[in-house]
């Protein structure tokens, strides 16, 4: 059977499974639509949260980022997992106790302010929409490579599938579909990793293989990797330049990713679906178990893929001449077709020179060998998808990886669309425009909102704004600077009143937005940036990707001072906070007054 038929079969079978689950778990009420009827087991919910959270970026891009960033890319690993500690300790159990459907609803009620709720809705929609564009683009790329259809056809198929199971099933359908998607994506991710780890180190557990001995050279794997990349003029894999500003940036960027993770609404709303407060705590732990399976494997995938790539191009060692273009393996020619990998024979010798031509210390060696610039351009995103081919794994593994990448992108897209549709139908329509809407009407509004959101996301996926990649940093920065501090203060600081919260959110939001626009251009229009987007060009040496941390601190400070300068929080709000803090029903909390 050829690869194409195999891809078609495996991807088709997984899609049939997702839609089948959606039909089986149709939502009938708003409670089922928004919170799956609050009957989801914590382990199941943990699995669904993991699928929801791990997007195309985690599945496809992260290992590539690590492969080329080495130690410096550890921010993604620590940031995207450390946020779950904050979620479990500071937010999830209390928001579950509060017992409403959406994040803006909590902010609106706790700060007794429709303005606060509106600000939260705006943050949520901006963060979720920008995030969804990236997912839809990922769906298009994955389909066009594996199903050999055009980018737009792939996007339409993906949109159709999301539409069917998200609109029909709501949160209930999505939860069970995401469980299936998690199983597909984790199998697809770990199987090639295990094989590659076995090939290189003899250790079947990739996370352990990363720190063990490289079978071919007898040296530690990471030591060997450091050696070969340095021989090609790249920086040492396990080091980062030790300047204070880069250390500060790494710290702030990690922190920003952590609080952004804890503030992203599509993850928070998953904790509304479990039956009890205690389950919300367990569920965050289970979510991290399932996430860690991938995140502990990713550093191994990155390092091993980098080493494999070097060994493929330099079969006789990095001090010898590289591979001839005519002898290139099949996977290189496969990926050349997509344009994500390209070769340009700059010195006309028919060999593939790949090295760091930006490194001055290496320039002399390169000139000596007659090299005239690096000739291979590798898009970081292809590493995970190409990994099974690089390692020469069987065709069914390649088909499985295709299905896994699609599962990651589709599950996150569905979760984000649900967060958007509930913000529109529940917070905007029921909360602000038409409070008397019937449950049936609200459910219809939610489904229409979701259909519109899918249409918009598909359109933006077909015509991606040039800034799509940059806006992911914006989405995290926004969630970090606005939503997370408001939720945390709402639970832990009774003294924060409506004026403080609104002032804090606006301060964090506007500061972060303006700082990003100053460095990346106003509304990302090229040429309008006032400062260069480098460490040297930024204020206090903080890069725009890390600024969400500062925005969050500003939010806390402004909210604190404004609240203390204005009147005390009303008694009934204090009682609400008391009741949120205690798992048992409202009766126990009322005894406090």
């Amino acid at each position, binding site marked *: 059977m050829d690869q194409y038929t195999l891809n078609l079969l495996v991807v088709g079978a997984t899609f049939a499974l997702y839609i089948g689950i959606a039909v089986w778990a149709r939502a009938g009420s708003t409670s089922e639509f928004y919170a799956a009827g609050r009957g989801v087991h914590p382990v199941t919910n943990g699995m669904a949260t993991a699928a929801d959270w791990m997007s195309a970026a985690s599945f496809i891009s992260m290992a590539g980022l690590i492969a080329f960033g080495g130690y410096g890319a550890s921010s993604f690993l620590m940031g995207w997992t450390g946020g779950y*500690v904050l979620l*479990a300790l500071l937010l999830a159990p209390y928001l579950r106790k509060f017992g409403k459907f959406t994040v803006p609803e909590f902010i609106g009620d706790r700060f007794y302010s429709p303005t606060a709720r509106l600000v939260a809705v705006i943050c949520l929609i901006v963060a979720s929409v920008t995030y969804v564009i990236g997912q839809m683009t990922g769906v298009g790329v994955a389909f066009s490579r594996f199903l050999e259809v055009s980018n737009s056809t792939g996007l339409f198929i993906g949109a159709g599938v999301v539409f069917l199971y998200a609109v029909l099933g709501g949160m209930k359908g999505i939860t069970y579909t995401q469980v299936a998607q998690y199983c597909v994506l984790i199998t697809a991710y770990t199987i090639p990793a295990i094989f590659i780890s076995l090939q290189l180190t003899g250790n079947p557990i990739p996370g352990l293989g*990363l720190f*063990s001995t490289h079978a071919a050279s007898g040296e530690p794997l990471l*030591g060997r990797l450091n050696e070969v990349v340095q021989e090609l003029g790249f920086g040492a894999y*396990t080091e980062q330049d030790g300047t204070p500003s880069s250390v500060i940036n790494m*710290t702030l960027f990690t922190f920003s990713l952590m609080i952004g993770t804890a503030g992203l609404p599509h993850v928070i709303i998953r904790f509304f679906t479990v039956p009890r407060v205690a389950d919300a705590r367990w569920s965050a732990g289970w979510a*991290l178990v399932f996430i860690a399976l991938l995140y*502990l494997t990713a550093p191994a995938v990155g390092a091993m893929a980098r080493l494999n790539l070097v060994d493929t191009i330099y079969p006789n060692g990095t001090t010898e001449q590289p591979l001839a273009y005519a002898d290139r393996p099949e996977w290189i020619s496969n990926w050349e077709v997509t344009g994500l990998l390209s070769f340009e024979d700059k010195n006309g010798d028919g060999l593939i020179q790949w090295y760091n031509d930006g490194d001055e210390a290496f320039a002399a060696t390169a000139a000596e060998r007659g090299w005239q610039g690096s000739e291979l351009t590798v898009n970081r995103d292809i590493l995970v998808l190409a990994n099974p081919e690089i390692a020469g794994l069987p065709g069914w593994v390649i088909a499985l990886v295709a299905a896994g990448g699609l599962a990651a992108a589709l599950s996150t897209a569905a979760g984000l669309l649900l967060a958007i549709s509930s913000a529109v139908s529940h917070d905007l329509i029921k909360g602000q425009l038409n409070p008397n809407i019937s449950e049936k009407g609200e459910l219809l509004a939610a489904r229409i909102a979701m259909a519109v959101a899918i249409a918009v996301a598909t359109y933006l996926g077909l015509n991606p704004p040039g800034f799509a990649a940059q806006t992911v940093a914006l989405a995290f920065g926004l969630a970090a600077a606005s939503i997370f501090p408001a939720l945390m203060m709402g639970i832990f600081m009774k003294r924060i009143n409506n004026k403080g919260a609104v002032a804090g959110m606006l301060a964090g939001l506007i500061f972060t937005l303006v700082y990003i626009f100053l460095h990346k251009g106003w509304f990302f229009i090229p040429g309008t940036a006032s400062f260069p987007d480098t460490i040297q060009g930024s204020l206090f040496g903080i890069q725009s990707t890390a600024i969400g941390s500062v925005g969050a601190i500003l939010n806390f400070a402004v909210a604190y001072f404004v609240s203390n300068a204005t009147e005390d929080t009303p008694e009934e709000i204090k009682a609400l906070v008391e009741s949120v803090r205690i798992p048992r029903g409202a009766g126990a909390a009322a005894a406090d007054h």
Partner: protein
Amino acid sequence: MADQISNSPARAAESGKGYWAANVRLIIGCLIVWALVSFGFGILLRPLLSGIPVGGADLGFWFAQQGSIIVFLCLIFFYAWRMNKLDRDYGVDEE
């Protein structure tokens, strides 16, 4: 008995405060560990750990790419277990 009943709202308030204070103490303890393994060992204190080799790199690198994630996991389960116990001790758990 009568005494107990008349005092119960005050006692409930007292125990509510104790419960919350114990919770906040637990959270602070967990967050110190959380910050130590990630920002500490993984980034800021890495030079101090550079003398401890782990498979071709050093302990700081291991914490940045594996160790902090494992500690995060243990922290969440430890917190959930302690809090659920605290809920029962203070009688604020859900039936």
